[in-house]
């Protein structure tokens, strides 16, 4: 089986400061990879380099495109990359306002990606939007409300619906539950788990919360100071950490 996504030797510096250095991994269809680390570990830099928001200094980011097989996304033209990020890729931001249009209704937000790839039937677009809002547990009656009228958890779920409506194969998530209340987080994680399984999504999730990765991720990469210090099966890395930093991280988690 060919991997869906391959990162080779990815590095990014900020002047003399290492953002991330020499990151390598393969991601297969249906796999969820967690990237954990504390502030300054380089995990957000890595995520943004992979997703095409930042330009890395070295390395390749290969993706198995539908039409042309494995291609290095860093070598793609901007129109190609933008098209990719509207169809096969999705990006869930930590703050919903970065991933939504706050002055457009919920239905419009969900329908935008459809319209961007040529949907031209209002009724069908609206039906698809209603269907997706239902899947993320947002009531149909709120379809015409603006996200500014939603709670944080609802905004985040709307962001997820907006991203998944075109059936992407790879989802990047940046602290998807950050800043949300605990019960809201739990609901969101349930939703993500079932969507990932139902849609056979591959996902890369960056977080500092070990409980989130245990729940969502099959595999885990631990980062410190821009380097990947350990990686493997999530439960193995968390239950039998080999690297000193991972051991420190795991033992620091407060038990409820």
């Amino acid at each position: 089986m060919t991997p869906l996504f391959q990162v080779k030797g990815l590095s990014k510096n900020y002047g003399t400061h290492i953002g991330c250095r020499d990151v390598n991994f393969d991601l297969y269809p249906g796999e969820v990879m967690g990237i954990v680390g504390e502030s300054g570990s380089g995990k957000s830099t890595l995520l943004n380099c992979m997703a095409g928001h930042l330009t890395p200094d070295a390395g390749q980011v290969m993706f198995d495109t539908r039409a042309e097989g494995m291609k290095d996304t860093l070598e793609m033209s901007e129109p190609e990359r933008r098209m990719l990020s509207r169809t096969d890729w999705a990006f869930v931001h930590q703050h919903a306002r970065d991933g939504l249009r706050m002055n457009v209704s919920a239905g419009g937000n969900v329908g935008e990606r459809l319209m961007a790839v040529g949907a031209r039937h209002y009724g069908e677009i609206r039906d698809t939007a209603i269907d997706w809002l239902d899947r993320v547990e947002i009531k149909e009656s709120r379809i015409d409300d603006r996200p500014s009228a939603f709670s944080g958890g609802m905004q985040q779920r709307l962001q997820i619906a907006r991203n998944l409506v075109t059936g992407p194969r790879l989802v990047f998530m940046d602290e998807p539950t950050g800043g949300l209340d605990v019960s809201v987080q739990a609901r969101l994680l349930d939703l993500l788990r079932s969507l990932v399984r139902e849609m056979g999504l591959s996902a890369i999730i960056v977080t500092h919360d070990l409980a989130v990765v245990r729940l969502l991720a099959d595999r885990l990469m631990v980062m410190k100071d821009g380097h990947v210090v350990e990686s493997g099966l999530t439960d193995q890395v968390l239950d039998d950490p080999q690297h000193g930093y991972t051991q420190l991280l795991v033992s620091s988690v407060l038990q409820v």
Partner: protein
Amino acid sequence: MIEISNVSKTFTLHNQGSAVIQVMDGANLSVAAGECVALTGSSGAGKSTLMRMIYGNYLAASGRILVGDVDVATAEPREIIQLRREVLGYVSQFLRVVPRVATLDVVAEPLLSLGVPAEEAEARARDLLAQLRIPERLWSLSPTTFSGGEQQRVNIARGFAHTYPAMLLDEPTASLDAQNRETVLSLIEEAKSRGAAIIGIFHDEAARDRVCDREINVSDFTPKAAA
């Protein structure tokens, strides 16, 4: 079906003065289809550790752990995940569940992740829960609030939902009354007769004698005390 050769395990605690603790060395074990092997040994000897290594939850320091034709000690994470989904089942001592998921869904999950249609998966789940005498009114509730014994039975139901060719059972009859213990032992016998290779840890001698064909004492794999 399960073959362990020359497996060792060492824990290095980097943040506690780099203390190195070698817990296992030269472990060998072989379990054929239809066999049930018990791991024995005093508390702390490494029974659960060995079981976790077979499951891939702990990393073996050296050696080979073959389950079917996958070497868990060196396999890729996705291979291990596939193995756990299709081939290797594990019933741990404690029920670990995602909060807020209904008991029925907890038990049906292994089948759903194999692509079994929802109705069929739920039917099997109901069947097992009924066998293990979990009252129907509890099926739609999350098991996190159940008693220890009830949780253990949900754990077992989930473990036996799919017909795994290989199974690891860690104290499956602990916290169970005589009736339920009987049910669990029948489930194990049923699994054996359909050809599953089983490794179990049983503190209950009677249970062990009933279902297990052989015993392996893991103390045999404890490294000789160093100076």
